[in-house]
């Protein structure tokens, strides 16, 4: 069964501190993983996808097939990073739909 697990419901860090949002997945095929972000009163939007291997707003995520993880990292958190973050797995078995984790709420305090 395909599953995405985000173990932390809430993560609180100080401004300037490193941040890591954890995501683990279970999938028998070749995974395609995404991070989506939802800022307060805004719609869900794509932050990054593992295939593109790019850094967006200072965030990076590396797919680790051995550990079946796709953790989201940023070396220096900013207050504007406070948001809800969702890890998602693209499922070929369901018409390329997204299978989301439960989300992690990141709070960056000054």
């Amino acid at each position: 069964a395909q599953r995405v697990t985000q173990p932390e419901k809430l993560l609180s860090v100080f401004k300037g501190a490193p941040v890591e949002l954890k995501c683990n997945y279970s999938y028998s095929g070749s995974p395609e993983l995404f991070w989506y972000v939802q800022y307060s009163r805004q719609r869900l939007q794509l932050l990054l996808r593992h295939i593109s291997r790019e850094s967006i707003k200072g965030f990076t995520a590396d797919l680790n097939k051995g550990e079946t993880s796709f953790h989201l990292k940023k070396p220096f958190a900013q207050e504007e990073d406070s948001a809800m973050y969702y890890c998602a797995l693209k499922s070929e078995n369901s018409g390329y739909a997204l299978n989301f984790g439960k989300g992690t709420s990141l709070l960056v305090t000054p």
Partner: protein
Amino acid sequence: DAGVTQSPTHLIKTRGQQVTLRCSPISGHKSVSWYQQVLGQGPQFIFQYYEKEERGRGNFPDRFSARQFPNYSSELNVNALLLGDSALYLCASSLGQGGSKNIQYFGAGTRLSVL
């Protein structure tokens, strides 16, 4: 440039009623997906349509149905509403399926409350 638009934004229904939610994709996008997001949970996949055909269905009862029109807009119907159907219903559109064509762009959602 309009993003994905959903209507209505809010809806209140009573148990047993039927509801229709509407979604207009980004211009040029041919695929529409529907998700249900219950408070405190991530979005859960309901349906995906591409070129007016159903291409995927999540684990939802037959009370849930959807369709896609020739202009690629879509409707989600829910019959015999239950209290547990109260949720934010999200629509997402993408250019197509596979590769970068499947990057999904989300609407703001329809908040459905069942009393």
